[in-house]
């Protein structure tokens, strides 16, 4: 056991570092579970409503691929499991990967592990620490999910299977991350490899649920559903999680034996010895630094658009029996046509997603400043305004690209399913692009904070969060109009379906330009660093 020496102390140190991050994740995931169980109980309170919903799911390829099958249509638990066991397992796996890599490869990369490794610490201790912390968090999550489900009145056995389905996914992906943390030399690559495996697992499950069902069995995420919570639990599936995690985990510990501290098995690829001729402006640098982020968002919004577009045409059947769901959708979408209201809601969410990206892209300026990478640039001919505008350009152009891609994929999917591409594609694309001015206002506020109060720049996220809350909850709690009007997204016409007007779009764009100009003017006058 000398190989594990020091694990205890390292786990305690790690828990202290994660005392904020872990509870936030747990809270978010549990809130989703509890609110889903609760709202399904209210929305589908009759047998007919539940059966109608389930038959609509079973005939829609998009919903099957995204969520899976409804295995027990006649219970709230069955619907909750349909909605959350696969997605929740994937989120648990993602959370686990981040934790394991953070406590292994990220520490090693930062040189902290070297400091620790010189102390009285066994060879296996750091990896074990990461795994123990992640699995401890997963166990706490599973326990709390179990309690939340029982608390909203779901059967105990089903709740146990549901919670263990998530934990099982966490177990397997803790092992996967333990391996990628040995293979890759940087935490970015380690996370990327593990997320690649996770994406593949989710994809296999989606293929299996929409097509040949044996494919789902290739995926640990599929196993979480095949446990069949609330639908005649199949406990033996748990053995699959344990067996796979044991095999992958053994590989990880084997790799620890075979490598030096600081090194990976995948060598980092060398870069070019000289810069490409195009890398000669702040804008070219900003693009180089930000293109990965944009690519990730583009893939996410393409998939989201395709799923939404695929569901939209069948939305009538999905919510036929539930007046409550209809009301929520038409309230948020602002039109009586259910399909249009659904698409308008989706367009609003696309707009908010693009705003998250744009704020992230603009706040890169602050990171560049605090990490002292702005200083050498600003010591060249590059002025502050040109430097700031380089990242602003990426944020603004990126938001256009994202909304265009999301709108195109949603419009195309919806058009194909409703056999009316020529009419639907421009409508949905237009609805997505109409979100742009609201996105820009939020981006401009983040830029203004960066210029005026650089230390408060992260408050840009708070502004965005407030917009999201107003958008999400405002209509259902019938919030006063003046309060709704605070968010720029309220002023975007609810397209498709409502009347289109350019006035609010022009006004929002003008506000964004003014706010951004104020931020840039402040940046000119303040100290850097």
């Amino acid at each position, binding site marked *: 056991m000398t190989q594990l020496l020091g694990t205890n102390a390292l786990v305690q140190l790690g828990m202290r570092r994660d005392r904020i991050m872990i509870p936030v994740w747990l809270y978010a995931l549990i809130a989703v579970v509890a609110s889903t169980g609760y709202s399904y109980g209210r929305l589908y309170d009759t047998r007919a409503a539940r059966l109608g919903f389930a038959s609509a799911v079973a005939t829609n390829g998009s919903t099957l691929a995204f969520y899976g099958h409804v295995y027990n249509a006649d219970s709230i638990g069955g619907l909750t499991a349909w909605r959350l066991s696969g997605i929740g397992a994937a989120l648990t796996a993602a959370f686990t990967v981040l934790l394991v890599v953070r406590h292994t490869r990220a520490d090693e990369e930062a040189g902290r592990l070297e400091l620790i490794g010189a102390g009285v610490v066994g060879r296996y201790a750091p990896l074990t620490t990461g795994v123990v912390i992640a699995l401890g968090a997963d166990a706490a999550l599973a326990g709390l999910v179990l309690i939340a489900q029982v608390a909203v009145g779901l059967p105990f056995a089903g709740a146990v299977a549901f919670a263990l389905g998530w934990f099982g996914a966490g177990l397997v992906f803790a092992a996967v991350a333990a391996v990628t943390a040995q293979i890759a030399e940087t935490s970015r690559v380690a996370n990327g490899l593990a997320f690649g495996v996770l994406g593949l697992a989710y994809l296999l499950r989606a293929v299996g649920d929409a097509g040949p069902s044996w494919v789902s069995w290739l995926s640990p995420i599929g196993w979480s559903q095949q446990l069949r919570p609330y639908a005649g639990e199949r406990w033996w599936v748990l053995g699959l999680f344990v067996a796979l995690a044991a095999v992958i985990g053994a590989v990880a510990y084997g790799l620890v034996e075979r490598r030096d501290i600081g090194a990976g098995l995948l060598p980092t690829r*060398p*870069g070019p010895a*000289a810069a*490409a001729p195009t890398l000669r402006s*702040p804008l070219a640098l900003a693009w*180089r*630094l930000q293109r990965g982020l944009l690519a990730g968002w583009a893939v996410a919004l393409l998939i989201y658009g395709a799923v939404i577009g695929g569901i939209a045409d069948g939305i009538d059947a999905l919510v036929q029996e539930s007046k409550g769901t209809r009301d929520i959708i038409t309230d948020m979408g602002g039109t009586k046509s259910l399909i249009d209201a659904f698409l308008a809601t989706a367009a609003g969410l696309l707009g908010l997603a693009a705003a998250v990206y744009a704020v992230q892209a603009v706040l890169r300026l602050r990171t560049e400043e605090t990490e002292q*990478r702005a200083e*050498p640039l600003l010591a060249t*001919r590059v002025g502050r305004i040109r430097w700031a505008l380089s990242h602003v350009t990426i944020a603004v152009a990126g938001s256009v690209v994202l909304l265009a891609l999301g709108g195109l994929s949603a419009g195309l999917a919806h058009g194909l399913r409703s056999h009316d591409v020529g009419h639907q594609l421009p409508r949905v694309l237009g609805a997505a692009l109409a979100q742009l001015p609201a996105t820009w206002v939020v981006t401009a506020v983040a830029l203004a904070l960066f210029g005026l109060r650089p230390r408060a720049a992260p408050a840009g996220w708070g502004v965005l969060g407030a917009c999201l809350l107003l958008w999400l909850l405002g209509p259902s709690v019938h919030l006063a109009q003046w309060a709704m009007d605070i968010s720029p997204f309220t002023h975007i016409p609810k397209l498709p379906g409502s009347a289109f007007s350019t006035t609010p779009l022009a006004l929002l764009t003008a506000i964004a330009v003014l706010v951004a100009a104020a931020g840039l003017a402040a940046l000119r006058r303040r100290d850097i660093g």
Partner: protein
Amino acid sequence: MPAIDIQNLVKTFGRTQALNGLDLSVEIGEVHGFLGPNGAGKSTTIRVLLGLLRADSGEVRLLGGDPWRDIATLHRRLAYVPGDVTLWPNLSGGEVIDLLGRLRGGMDERRRAELLERFELDPTKKGRAYSKGNRQKVALVAALASDVELLILDEPTSGLDPLMEEVFRECIADERARGRTVLLSSHILSEVEALCERVSIIRDGRTVESGSLSELRHLTRTSITAELDTAPDGLARHPGVHDLNVDGTTVRLEVDPPQLGDVLGELTKLGVRSLASRPPTLEELFLRHYATDASRERSTPEAS
């Protein structure tokens, strides 16, 4: 016209006074040493010179211009190496060198290749893979290969090994021969002594000494060790004698420059068998300022 001319510069951050009436003058074509303990305000001064920080008051002239207003024109003519170099994790060293060179307005390709070889730097590594010393080399190559009049270097050798430090010294000697002006902030006194004609020493945001090394030496005591025929008596009362240490007929003492002649006369009267005198090293000069700093703090521990 001097390359850098700062008079009575004041800069405060909130309640902390970083610079408190600092003066600095660097002539064109000289290598000027900029010395001071940690936190004395060296980096703050440099960042004011680069137009990153705005002076609260005082006069700052850089290459004949105002560093806050004339950024675009001034920055064509200077190159800067920060004390703590951070690189973009995904860019290779070669890419960073080229990017900075281009943004500065062009670099000498032949010189770039020559410097990479002299500093033994692999330009294909990614930013995150470099050690501190190698990150510094990336910034140094980018600055030295640029065709500029003024180099501003903020502790450029703090991460270099002794061999590379030697290479750095050769490079700066070359720069001086080419007539470039260098402001060298440093902690390594032997480096400053080897490279700089003039130095400025700052403390608590204020310039405490400035001048050529020989001028500064005149301001400081000379240490003398002498073996005499008879044991000395009364030397301690002589004005200008400090730190007297008598061991039989051997004396060690330090003497202020104006009294040097008188004290030597006294010693001669006692019969000198051997005599060694040594001018103060820069280190002693520097340590004197540190020591006053520390002893002053000791004498007024509750002052703040």
